[in-house]
């Protein structure tokens, strides 16, 4: 009893130690800062600082091996008004991202639905589907480079030697030398590489949809088509949004496929932000313009992220 009344009296409490006062202001687990310190140091010195440096470069006339001075927005103005390749870069990046992500969603959904239904050789089929995504992109793209080479192209060979194509007199196509075909080829290879990510993630989303929803729908007399539109697709929407988010970001920022297949050619027709920025910054040594080009990517990425995250949040709210 005595002890209880003692605790109740405020003036009897000893003054707070430094440690507990710290605890009050920063939370109970002060050692948390120690845990995140190594990653914070690396992230600040190798991501945040370089990002700031990129912003500074874009506002300067930095050139490899020369001191840089501040020139304001001149680089951005040059890119937007004088540079006649940049509009193509913008167009290519948008076409590249939109077409390739749309194809990945469409074919990924079909392939995932097919994979979900099989029982024998399940692991083999699923495993084989994912290989393009884990194998080194630069090396597999070199494989596609051979397949699309004008002289050695396997597609041109089929068009020339295999009936009925041989009768049609099609080709040989210059897959990487004709501007439209080159952009299509690059999108196609990106589609090949990115499809597995969609298939596997959508498949996981399909598996997580509870069976009883389908059973209930069947009792109500729903057709397969109804079940797809009314159950599968709405419940897959959050998964689809996340997959589309990641894929769009990595497709927008893609470097390897375009660089290996076309190096931005023919006549700069297939450049993306990353390859164009490489051309300026590394090949032409103009770091300022290179950084400015790559920074144009940032608002586009931010817009995509915010837009898709909103979509995801709305979906979660809808589910609750």
């Amino acid at each position, binding site marked *: 009893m005595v002890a209880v009344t003692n605790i109740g009296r405020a003036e009897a409490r000893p003054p707070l130690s430094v440690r507990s006062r710290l605890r009050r202001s920063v*939370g109970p687990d002060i050692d948390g800062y120690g845990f995140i310190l190594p990653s914070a140091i690396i992230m600040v010195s190798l991501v945040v600082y370089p990002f700031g440096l990129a912003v500074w470069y874009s506002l300067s006339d930095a050139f490899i091996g020369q001191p840089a001075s501040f020139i304001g927005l001149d680089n951005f103005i040059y890119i937007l008004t004088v540079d006649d390749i940049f509009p193509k870069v913008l167009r290519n990046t948008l076409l590249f991202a939109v077409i390739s992500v749309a194809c990945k969603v469409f074919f990924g959904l079909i392939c995932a639905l097919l994979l979900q239904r099989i029982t024998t050789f399940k692991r083999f089929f699923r495993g084989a589907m994912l290989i393009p995504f884990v194998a080194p992109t630069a*090396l597999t793209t070199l494989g596609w480079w051979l397949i699309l080479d004008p002289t050695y192209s396997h597609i041109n*060979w089929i068009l020339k030697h295999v009936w009925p194509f041989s009768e049609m007199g099609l080709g040989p196509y210059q897959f990487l030398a004709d501007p439209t075909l080159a952009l299509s080829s690059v999108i196609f290879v990106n589609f090949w590489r990115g499809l597995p990510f969609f298939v*596997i993630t959508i498949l996981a989303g399909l598996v*997580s949809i509870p069976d009883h929803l389908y059973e209930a729908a069947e009792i109500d007399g729903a057709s397969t088509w109804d079940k797809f539109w009314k159950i599968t697709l709405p419940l897959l929407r959050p998964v689809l949004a996340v997959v589309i988010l990641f894929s769009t970001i*990595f497709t927008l920022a893609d470097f390897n496929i375009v660089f290996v297949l076309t190096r931005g050619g023919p006549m700069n027709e297939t450049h993306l932000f990353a390859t164009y920025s490489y051309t300026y910054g590394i090949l032409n040594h103009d770091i300022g313009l290179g950084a400015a080009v790559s920074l144009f990517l940032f608002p586009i990425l931010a817009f995509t992220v915010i837009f898709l995250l909103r979509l995801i949040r709305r979906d979660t709210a809808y589910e609750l």
Partner: protein
Amino acid sequence: MSSDTATMPAMAKSERTSLALNRTPMWRQRKKLANYLALLPYIAFALFPFYIMVITSLKSNQEINNLSKSPFWATGITTDHYVYLAQNTGFFDHWLLNTVIVATVSTVISVSVGTLGAYALARLRFRGVEMFGVAVFITYLVPQSLLFIPLINVVNAVDSVVPIRDTYWSLILTYPTFLIPFVMWLLMGYFRTIPVEVEECAYLDGCSRLSALFRVVLPMAMPGIICAVLFSYTLSWNEFLYSLVFIQDQAAKTLSVGVFTELIRGDIYYWGSLMAACFTGAIPIVVLYSFFMDYYVSGLTSGAIK
């Protein structure tokens, strides 16, 4: 089954169901076969470039250059291109070795640093923890193509203290920039699935925070850690841009860049050795993947399904 449906109120429907049940075997088998047949184009599409790599790498130059012969098949098999890779290029001596070293060291660094950070972000309560979580997500989304130009400057700055320029150490320094956010983001999800009570028990038994982490939490999060290791290794193995930008010395190159810059010479392409190199460079990762497929799948999907 049919007696169950018969007891249901909708009699007309149950009749239809039993009719359907009578003819299922044949009908269902056909549907199953159609399912497999529909999948075949997808599998063929996914594996096509690998098949082309193997077939081309096993053909003699003469056969490759004979354009009237089918490029889809080899009539004589030769290992010349693989021998050439081993004897005349830095493929096995330098590029493969460098890639293994870079992937291993940057994986070890990123997973250990990332594990500590992810644990703090998932479990501990301190001011700013949400902000750090958001920061990790944002850095995860910052692509390499936005950072490679300023990172040249960082590499040069470090180079003035320790010589790392044009060596694989520049890659070991820079790869954690995309590995750590990924590892943290992946492991935060895993740590959250482990019940807090387990840790509280460890504290009651007198464990400190670190010993609770190493003795209780990490063993339970092992699938997540393995997943993080596999992904870090794969991402480092496949990295191309930083390696292309930071390394010019032939002997310091990694696989992807070595093959791309050293094996494509002039206007006449040596397709045989090029395809042999592409195939050999992809094998280790594909083999690793085939052994740990489930971890890869769970790593890919953990972010999307939650």
